[in-house]
């Protein structure tokens, strides 16, 4: 599982950070940083929740 963020869509609502702070971090520059692009399978439910809850639909999961 690879976490993909479309930074053209992302507007740093930080919802993903609220769900999975170990993977998503919005910093003081107001930009989103993905801390772990290939999180373990155990984090899948959280990442999927972040995908669903992102107000801009900017997050997706790639399987490769």
């Amino acid at each position: 599982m690879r976490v993909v963020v479309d930074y053209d869509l992302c507007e740093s609502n930080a919802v993903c950070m609220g769900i999975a702070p170990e993977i998503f971090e919005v910093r003081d520059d107001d930009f989103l940083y993905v801390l772990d692009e290939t999180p373990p399978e155990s984090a899948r439910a959280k990442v999927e929740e972040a995908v669903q809850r992102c107000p801009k639909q900017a997050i997706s999961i790639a399987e490769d």
Partner: protein
Amino acid sequence: MDNSHTTVVVGASLAGMHAARTLRTEGHPGPIVVLDADPRTPYDKPPLSKQVLSQGWEPEKLTLPAATEDLGLDLRLGVRATGLDLGTRTVAVQALDGPGEVGFDSLVIATGAAARRLPGTDDIDGVHVVRSLDDALALRAALEASPSRVVVIGAGFIGAEVAASCRTLGLEVTMVEALPMPLERVLGSEMGAVCAALHVEHGVDLRLDTGVESFETIPSDDGRRRVTGVALTDGTTVAAEVVVVGIGVALNTSWLEGSGLTLDDGVVCDETLLAAPGVVAAGDIARYPSTRFGGLLRVEHWEHAIQGGEAAARRLLADARGEAPVPFDPVPWFWSDQYDRKIQLAGRPAPTDEVRVVHGSTDEFRFVALYGRDGALSAVLGMNRPRHVIQLRGLVEEGATFDEALERAASL
């Protein structure tokens, strides 16, 4: 639930589509029929007052993911629910090809709300609301004609976002607000003043404590009229070819009248969003008892609609499995984008709460403020501080004291 169990979802916006998605992905094998009066492919609404108006976003970009996912939904668009019979378990509908009815075993009510209009404006061209995709596209077309001025009536979040979009397009804007301070019933007058200042800073002619006296019009086609200006209660008249009315919403509950459901500022549900056996409600229309905040709560926020749709679906699934239903009581949260500022609010502030700015400065429109009530943290407000808001939102969820929250905020 067996394969013949049919669930009807009325309303294909955020709450309805997430309810349908959750039903399907979490074990509803039978037919899921989703109805909506709006003929458009189900879409996301936040961009309607922003990206659609000022950034040229086209309708396809707004399509809700659940509308294109392979969920096997029976999506019937352009079909308006007109009545509900809980005895025969049928929804009366009006489709383009005439009336009909749709039977159900379980029902999800998610018809949301419509924009309130000012009385006496139905025959006036140039007076807009922003609620549906077609509303937004009509307003965009009017803005593309380069009006000399836009009057926005109501400085709530929709009005404020439309005003910001219009200024971004370089249009002159007058925003009229009946209250002495915008958003004061939500944020209190101190933070309302900050929101007001943001618009003044961006060149909006803001008229507070002012109402609409009448519309000035000229005759238009088909016996209609066209707006040319707005006479205000401050005695002035503002010339404008485009007027946008953002004065709140009216809930789409008329089809439920006489059904036996309790209608009182929404569909009154229990703490699991159940309104009657096998009938749940979600989104703007659902009013439910909140242990967290006390009393009945009805919330019109984006993520709340998703959470409500999911919770309503799980309520039905729990019934079918004989499991105990889980109460629905999240901390409401929303955001509003205006100019290059992002306003975020988590919790339920009251106008009389104590407000403390704990980060940044309101003069720079970049800050975090905490709201305290009876010693408890009631809400977190941020402007261009998403990280702080999301982190402090957890404290509202935990029921932290105001002092604990102040201490924690200082360490972020």
